[in-house]
């Protein structure tokens, strides 16, 4: 994958649309990241953390019973087995280490499903930093377990009560916090979105998923998979795995929730620091996304995804909540793996597209585990 232009653009998308107050912080972050990313000692320190603390590399699982059920070969990249239960830890350890080197004492984060909030709270505990996580009021209710985990880890969880009271509003609150605390705080943004350098930096911190998966596929298959798929909210786990295969012939498929399908229902717009596809009304007011999964409940998409969609390198599909619920059960029953609702979106598409995918080999990034969704699913499924 290519690096963004000097003005933070992937094609025509991206940029740095933030209040002047934050510009010096974004520029300082870009400088610090550029330096750290080519610094062998930083990379070694991060790799050690990823291995000894987060449990990397995550395995690649070949699915016998699911493959039989779907009629084609399925491989799972097991990000659900990382410490804290999702891919989010990759980015958070990178950013927290960088923040520490920049002399920041406090991490600010937004969270939807709570996975990024838990990961940030975890890194803050590990590095002895203070941590504030903004979470939509609606999400606090449906993800009570993760709220408890964050508090247990020593983070302060603040309810975002404006607008749709979900991820989008949590991001607004986190940015408002950062505007006031920028001197000693680092905004630990959880996806490939926001102002430059975040979309690029977060992708780079997740690149490890794709690198490992590429090597694991070579070992397991002796070739590239035909299709690589992942769910997309902001799109960090998808870019992580896509980065390992963008230079191969593999087809890249991002799967969005039907109620938050920025690529399908969106038009170019600017919110939360970058220009990308966005669900908005005719006047530019941002619409509220609706999804069974708090982690994908976002009306936009990372700018690099908008670019990949525009140039046709990746394609984007959408699935309904009911298809997701079916997929959630399918993986549990066939493979003994309870997925998070987010990657269940990609599996839902795989299940629907079984005729199209017949005879192919499909790699799914299983970005998180379903423990956090158990209560919600228990109520739904009885």
């Amino acid at each position, binding site marked *: 994958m290519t690096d963004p232009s000097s*003005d933070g653009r992937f094609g025509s998308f991206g*940029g*740095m*649309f*933030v*209040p*002047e*107050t*934050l*510009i*010096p*912080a974004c520029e300082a972050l870009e400088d610090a990241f550029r330096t750290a990313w080519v610094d062998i000692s930083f990379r070694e320190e991060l790799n050690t953390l990823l291995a000894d603390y987060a449990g990397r590399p995550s395995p690649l699982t070949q699915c016998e019973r699911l493959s039989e059920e779907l009629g084609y070969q399925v491989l799972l990249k097991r990000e659900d087995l990382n410490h804290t239960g999702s891919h989010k830890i990759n980015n958070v350890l990178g950013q927290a280490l960088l923040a520490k080197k920049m002399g920041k004492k406090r991490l600010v984060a937004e969270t939807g499903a709570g996975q990024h909030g838990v990961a940030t709270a975890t890194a803050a505990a590990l590095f002895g930093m203070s941590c504030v996580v903004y979470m939509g009021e609606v999400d606090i209710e449906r993800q009570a377990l993760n709220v408890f985990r964050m508090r247990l880890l020593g983070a302060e969880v603040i309810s975002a009560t*404006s*607008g749709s009271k979900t991820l*989008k*509003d949590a991001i*607004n609150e986190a*940015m*408002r916090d950062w*505007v*006031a*605390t*920028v*001197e000693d705080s680092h905004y630990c943004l959880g996806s490939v979105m926001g102002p430059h350098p975040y979309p690029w930096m977060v992708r780079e911190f997740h690149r490890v998923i794709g690198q490992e998966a590429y090597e694991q596929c070579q070992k397991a298959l002796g070739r590239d998979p035909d299709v690589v798929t992942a769910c997309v909210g902001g799109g960090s786990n998808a870019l992580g795995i896509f980065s390992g295969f963008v230079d191969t012939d593999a087809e890249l498929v991002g799967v969005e929730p039907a109620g938050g399908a920025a690529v399908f229902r969106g*038009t*170019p*717009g*600017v*919110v*939360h*620091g970058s*220009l990308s596809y*966005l669900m*908005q009304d*005719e*006047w*530019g*007011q*941002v619409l509220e996304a609706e999804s069974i999964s708090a982690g994908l409940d976002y009306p936009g998409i990372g700018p690099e995804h908008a670019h990949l969609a525009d140039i046709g390198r990746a394609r984007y599909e959408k699935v309904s909540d009911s298809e997701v619920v079916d997929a959630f059960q399918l993986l549990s029953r066939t493979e003994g793996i309870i997925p998070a609702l987010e990657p269940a979106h990609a599996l839902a598409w795989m299940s629907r597209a079984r005729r199209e995918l017949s005879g192919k080999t499909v790699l799914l990034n299983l970005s998180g585990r379903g423990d956090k969704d158990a209560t919600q699913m228990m109520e739904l499924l009885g």
Partner: protein
Amino acid sequence: MSKSPLRIEESLRKRIGGGGKCLVPYITGGFEGYVEAIYAAAEAGADAIEIGIPFSDPVMDGPTIQKANDVVLAQKISPLDILQEIRDLDIGIPLAVMTYYNIVYRFGLERFANALSESGISGAILPDLPLNEAGAWVDAASANGTETILLAAPTTTDERLEALCGQSKGFVYAVGLLGITGVRAELARSAVVIAGRCKAFTDKPVLVGVGIGTPEQAKEVSEVADGCIVGSAIVQKLLDGEGPESVGTFVAAIRSALDES
């Protein structure tokens, strides 16, 4: 009917030239009674008025302005509705809009610039459109003579400050503190510091906004700045249902505090 709008810089220079300090009240467009509040503020001694066009995700705004935004958005009042409603105002002082970039982007840059001139609006303040990203908008705006007012923050480096003071039109909006809009108990030290830093780079009017909510704070900051912008304290009066007259009374109180200095 389009008329040639009054220039903001001209109006402010007139006040400064007479030894006075400038006052720019902010009023949320579309909010019940806002047109009357604009008239009241103009009569009470404002030098220009900033009209907010509500946006769904206003990251530079605190709870007061967010709340007023939400009230207006819930009534499905569009940016165009507001621009058309203020089209024929005859208040004798220039107007600027304050909104977020997506509203402008979605409208279309040239179309928005045209809509501003047609409504007799001289300037635009877009807090999430920093200098680096402002080029396309500034070109569209300048073609119509619209003044794009840039914001300078306490964190802005001297190098950037010089560049943005050079490119800002109308005045330089100095952000008084690290934080979002809203009334604070005391004037932040940073307000005076940023005003002084801006003035070292430009002879354009330098007005401080964000965190100025009382006549005393307005007076204190204007000892260094050329004046100030007062927003949340005014919008709060509208939210509290105190009506447009209360806006006039409050603006008059700030005016007289500024005139004492």
